[in-house]
């Protein structure tokens, strides 16, 4: 079999499975008793083993096999989970990752793992004897046509009983003359999804989608809704002729052969009710973000295809060209002022607006893809530094443009390392300060307006302002005069200044010669900014603000003499026209009174040194009020042209660091307009 064409898919899927393994292992570390997690890891490992064997990567398959044996023994309660065992399993996963990376880089995935294999064998034979054979017999996928359940599904059903869920077997019959069976099935699933969780179907979801069934199909379903209500709801789907709902009883699940282990687990649960149920509840909770999503997605067969990112990039580039042409068309049609042309152009603009949304969202990736490497990193770091740290991730599903995602990884690694190394104190120190021994790092992502915020919060020592200031003065980052007037926040942010590094002892973790200024530069080059809040003794928050996308933005076009500039809409508060008399003087600075606050005026013609043949004598001034954080400024221009969507272009390598210009764009008439960087204009 020619497997090359599947290689890419294999690599992608292997990475996903390995990621799932690491995530679940971390969970298992927190809840060593929870055997359902082991089941999950086992599944991933099993699939990986199968795939790599098919693809002919023997080493990969072998190591996975050994790991699987250990997992199976754990699952069958022949081995008790200990941190030592987990270490070895983590190590195996690391090896597997390396192998997959090697394959991805064109290698053969070979790697010396004898040490790990020996350890795995030791664990396996030390406490379990026949685990290896059992693993072979274990069905990892369910292809039965009847509704029978494997151990894993049974345990889910049994667990759900404890949480007052009902399990039903639903038999749905469609009318004989039903034409779009797959569509009806989909609608039934949609109804069910709002009510609970589908755990199994017969025939399988794939067959259902391909309409490979007669008139009736069966669904195993967990819900808190009453069966009558459920029946009524499903009946509402047209062309459904009959719905039969029978409850699944706990007893039904027991007389099967391989029931002992699950039973043991449940009887154990009964005896240790207090602890066990609590644990189940808590794992459910942490799982809720990921597992149900996965489970819910699986039955409906979320129809996705994998598309090469390059193609998406090409699509985006072509679309950018279109956006430029649209601008050109718009300006032509407004000049010509032909009714039909206007209508067509307007219609086209609307369609393009929709198209733009779709293309942009298509390129959106959840930050999870960046975040998911951090739990393991934190685990490693806390070992290295002998600190106790727990990482909490909030909002991993927040989506960001791929261009931003690609760039944000390294700065985040840097910041997290910084928090762990400098922020969180050693357990002894923490105990002495009356804090829990375990430090917490919270990684939070959320959308707000046209921006995405990523925050890294730790409950560590916070920033020692005096020390920072002293160091900044010593290194000449600030002058004593400047230091006098600095706010606490400004002092905190000194640690981001170039030429500053607080680590007294250069550790392997964060003192790598590059300071946090690299982080700041990277984030600013992405059009974002970073700020720090810190309370000495109780922790710091690093907050990063990032634009949703880097390719197309909305701007307000303004004119100064003959020149056109673009001001990003995201920083504009409003535009207004003021009378000359309204301009006041305060400390050599022209200001206006804007809704009760004093706003300094910035004359763009002065800032940009716009050549003016004769001075402008006008009684009125056009002002664009912009903001940076809480600070405002009024940009004075000659006139407003209007709002437009533009494609961001860089000025290239030759012209870098132009004051108050963040980039350029091409207008409808083919000319280049510069984009104003409002952040640079507000001090």
């Amino acid at each position, binding site marked *: 079999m020619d497997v090359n064409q599947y290689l890419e898919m294999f690599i992608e899927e292997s990475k996903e499975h390995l990621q799932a393994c690491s995530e679940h292992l971390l969970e298992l570390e927190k809840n060593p008793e929870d055997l359902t997690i082991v089941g999950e890891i086992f599944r991933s490992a099993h699939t990986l083993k199968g795939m790599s064997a098919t693809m002919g990567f023997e080493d990969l398959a072998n190591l996975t096999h050994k790991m699987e044996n250990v997992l199976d023994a754990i699952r069958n309660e022949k081995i008790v989970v200990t941190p030592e065992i987990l270490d070895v399993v983590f190590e195996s996963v690391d090896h597997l990752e390396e192998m997959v990376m090697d394959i991805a880089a064109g290698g053969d995935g070979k790697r010396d793992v004898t040490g790990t294999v020996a350890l795995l064998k030791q664990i396996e034979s030390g406490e379990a004897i026949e685990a290896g054979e059992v693993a072979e017999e274990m069905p990892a996928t369910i292809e039965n046509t009847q509704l029978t359940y494997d151990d894993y599904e049974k345990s889910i059903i049994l667990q759900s009983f404890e949480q007052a869920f009902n399990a039903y077997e639903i038999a749905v019959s469609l009318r004989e003359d039903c034409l779009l069976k797959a569509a009806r099935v989909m609608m039934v699933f949609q109804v069910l999804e709002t009510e609970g969780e589908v755990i199994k179907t017969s025939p399988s979801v794939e067959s259902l989608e391909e309409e490979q069934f007669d008139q009736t199909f069966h669904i195993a379903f967990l819900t808190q809704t009453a069966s009558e209500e459920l029946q009524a709801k499903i009946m509402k789907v047209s062309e459904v002729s009959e719905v039969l709902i029978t409850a699944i009883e706990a007893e039904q699940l027991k007389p099967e052969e391989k029931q002992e282990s699950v039973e043991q687990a449940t009887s154990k649960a009964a005896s240790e009710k207090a602890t066990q149920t609590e644990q189940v509840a808590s794992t459910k909770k942490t799982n809720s973000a990921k597992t149900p999503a996965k489970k819910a997605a699986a039955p409906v067969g979320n129809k996705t295809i994998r598309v090469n990112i390059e193609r998406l990039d090409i699509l985006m580039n072509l679309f950018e060209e279109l956006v*430029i042409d649209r601008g050109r068309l718009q300006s032509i049609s407004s000049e010509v002022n032909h009714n039909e042309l206007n209508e067509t152009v307007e219609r086209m603009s609307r369609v393009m607006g929709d198209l733009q949304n779709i293309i942009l969202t298509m390129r959106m990736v959840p930050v999870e893809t960046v975040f998911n490497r951090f739990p393991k990193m934190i685990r490693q770091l806390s070992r290295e530094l002998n600190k106790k740290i727990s990482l909490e991730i909030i909002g991993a599903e927040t989506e960001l443009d791929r261009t931003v995602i690609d760039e944000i990884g390294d700065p985040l690694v840097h910041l997290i390392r910084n928090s762990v190394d400098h922020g969180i104190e050693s357990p002894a120190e923490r105990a002495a300060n009356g804090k829990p021994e375990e430090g917490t790092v919270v990684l939070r992502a959320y959308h707000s307006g046209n921006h995405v915020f990523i925050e890294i919060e730790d409950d560590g020592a916070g920033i020692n302002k005096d020390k920072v200031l002293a160091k900044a003065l010593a290194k000449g980052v600030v002058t004593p005069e400047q230091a006098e007037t600095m706010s606490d926040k400004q002092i905190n942010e000194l640690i981001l200044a170039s030429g500053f590094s607080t680590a007294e002892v250069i550790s392997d973790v964060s003192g790598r010669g590059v300071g946090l200024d690299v982080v700041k530069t990277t984030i600013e080059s992405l059009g974002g900014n970073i700020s720090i809040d810190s309370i000495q003794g109780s922790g710091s928050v690093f907050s990063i603000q990032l634009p949703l996308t880097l390719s197309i933005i909305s701007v307000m076009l303004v004119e100064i003499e003959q020149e056109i500039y673009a001001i990003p809409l995201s920083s504009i508060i409003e535009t207004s026209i003021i009378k000359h008399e309204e301009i006041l003087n305060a400390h050599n600075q022209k200001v206006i009174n804007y809704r009760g606050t004093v706003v300094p005026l910035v004359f763009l013609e002065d800032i940009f*040194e716009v050549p003016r043949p004769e001075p402008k004598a006008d009684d009125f001034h056009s002002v664009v009020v912009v903001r940076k954080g809480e600070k405002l400024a009024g940009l004075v221009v000659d006139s407003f042209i209007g709002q437009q969507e533009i494609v961001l272009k860089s000025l290239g390598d030759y*012209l870098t660091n132009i004051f*108050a210009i963040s980039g350029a764009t091409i207008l409808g008439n083919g000319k280049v307009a510069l984009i104003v960087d409002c952040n640079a204009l507000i001090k």
Partner: protein
Amino acid sequence: MSTAIEQDNMKVIVFQLENKEYAIPVSNVQGIERLMHITRVPKTPSYVKGVINLRGVVTPIIDLRDRFNLPATENRDTERIIIVSIRNTEVGFIVDSANDVLDIKMSAIEPQPEVVGSEEEEFISGVARLDNRLLILLQLEKVLNT
């Protein structure tokens, strides 16, 4: 350009500036454009005239007359923009006119004479004698350095 030096001949684009002829290796030249609208970029050296839209790519433009401290020309009709690519950076040079592609023998290239006595001295990598013409070879990296 090292590849060009290994060969016997070097193909160059010849352009005029204030009655002198200059040459740039063809391998560095991306194209020659007529003068088009240039958007001024503020706070840049005076010889940076601004940026143009070169088929969707924003390209900076340098006025070589200004760069060599020559007076501005009146005859703008023949003025051309030569787009060159140096170390993956694309830049356009404004020149008086550009109309020749020549082969020059490597042996005809001499180091620059001591007494050139003009501002462009530091940008010159050598001169080439060709029949009655004297071509000044430019060192592009130097021209770009600020």
